């Protein structure tokens, strides 16, 4: 498997070398003592990269702005990040351990994701660095192709792994942020509010998918229990459309609430939803519906025996 990858990479390198003006013609892979030599070569490589740090970094930053990556960041920021990335990169090459780089990638992602940096940009800059370094290797060893080939054999797998590590780190961080936000939206989207003793309202806004519908029901039933509610007003003024599944779910919620001893009043059905419900033939016999939220609350108050009276003229 590894041999296969190396071969492919060698071909690629050959092409790149040709493009760079070298005259490569079928260099036989020299695998004898490859492993011992590999770390030796990596050391040489790292020394080279350390030596030319300033110049290579400059070149890399230049390429980044040339290709219009990381446009969300200022030039100084790019330079500062580039320096740390470069150093971590070289360190990962040297030690062949990727934990530190992984941690750095996650940390970097945490900082730049909120600023709208995209996945392709992060992958792009790492690949650019890989390219810049590879080119400098070509320049350094253009007289000794055998050595160049071996250096690249050592460099490419490590570089690939670095690129992989950074990209995966970024994507993982992004997914973590997305999960967190989904969680937050889910929490926020189903408030069960008590407006009077034993009266709850559940305003639903936005699209209801089956998952959210289930969550709504769970939260409502739990709310009925903890608040000892007798009447619940579900307001769906903010719901634009409803399909069969969700409509049936609503009916089930009403019935389940009744089993807990609470009466449900549904308010704010839009003309479109009313039409849909009638067309798809949802059994609405058990649903208690009132035109708007105000009417719903008034009816709930009547059911609970409240009487609202104006004590004075409003000022």
């Amino acid at each position, binding site marked *: 498997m590894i041999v296969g990858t190396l071969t492919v990479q060698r071909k690629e390198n050959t092409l790149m070398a040709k493009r760079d003006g070298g005259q490569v013609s079928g260099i036989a892979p020299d695998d004898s003592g490859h492993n011992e030599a590999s770390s030796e070569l990596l050391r040489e490589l790292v020394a080279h990269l350390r030596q030319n740090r300033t110049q290579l970094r400059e070149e890399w930053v230049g390429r980044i702005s040339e290709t219009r990556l990381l446009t969300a960041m200022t030039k100084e920021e790019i330079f500062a990040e580039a320096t740390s990335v470069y150093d971590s990169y070289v360190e990962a090459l040297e030690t062949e351990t990727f934990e530190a780089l992984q941690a750095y990638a996650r940390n970097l992602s945490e900082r730049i994701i909120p600023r709208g940096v995209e996945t392709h940009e992060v992958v792009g800059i790492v690949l650019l660095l890989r390219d810049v370094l590879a080119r400098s290797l070509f320049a350094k060893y253009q007289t000794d192709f055998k050595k160049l080939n071996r250096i690249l054999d050592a460099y490419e797998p490590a570089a690939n792994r670095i690129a992989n590590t950074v990209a995966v780190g970024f994507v993982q961080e992004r997914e973590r942020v997305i999960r967190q936000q989904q969680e937050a939206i889910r929490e926020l989207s189903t408030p069960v509010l008590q407006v009077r003793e034993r009266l709850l309202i559940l305003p639903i806004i936005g699209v209801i998918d089956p998952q959210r519908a289930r969550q709504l029901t769970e939260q409502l*039933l739990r709310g009925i*229990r903890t608040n000892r509610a007798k009447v619940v007003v579900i307001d769906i003024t903010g719901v634009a459309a409803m399909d069969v599944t969700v409509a049936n779910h609503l009916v089930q919620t009403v019935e389940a*609430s009744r089993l*807990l001893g609470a009466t449900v009043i549904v308010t704010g059905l839009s003309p479109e939803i009313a039409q849909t419900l009638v067309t798809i033939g949802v059994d609405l016999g058990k649903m208690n519906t009132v035109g708007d939220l105000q009417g719903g609350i008034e009816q709930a108050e009547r059911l609970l025996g409240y009487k609202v009276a104006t004590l004075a003229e409003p000022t």
Partner: protein
Amino acid sequence: MEVPILKQGEVLIATFQAALSDADLNQLRSGLVRQVVKFRSRGVIVDVTAMDVMDSFASRTLREIAQMIRLRGAETVIVGIQPEVAFAMVQLGLTLEGVVTALDLEEGLNYLNKKFKTVN
């Protein structure tokens, strides 16, 4: 395991324990129906707080109890259905139609007392 039936004023109270067999349910049903007239009770409360599973037999028995008690001249309230159980029941179509339900024992007693007052 037999379900104890307690008398509290004009109300009979039966509390379900978890995991009742079908035979226990049948026994409870006949016990309630017999005692409701024996004690001249006007209401029956069946408390199912401890039940975390409600199968179709249990829910049918509850409905039968309610209907039979009505024929014997009293009213039944089922109390303490857990939220998860309630939702599972409606999904299975076990909606206990025509049976009065309340949140817990206290609510059930309130309901019956109010009912008794309006009748007098």
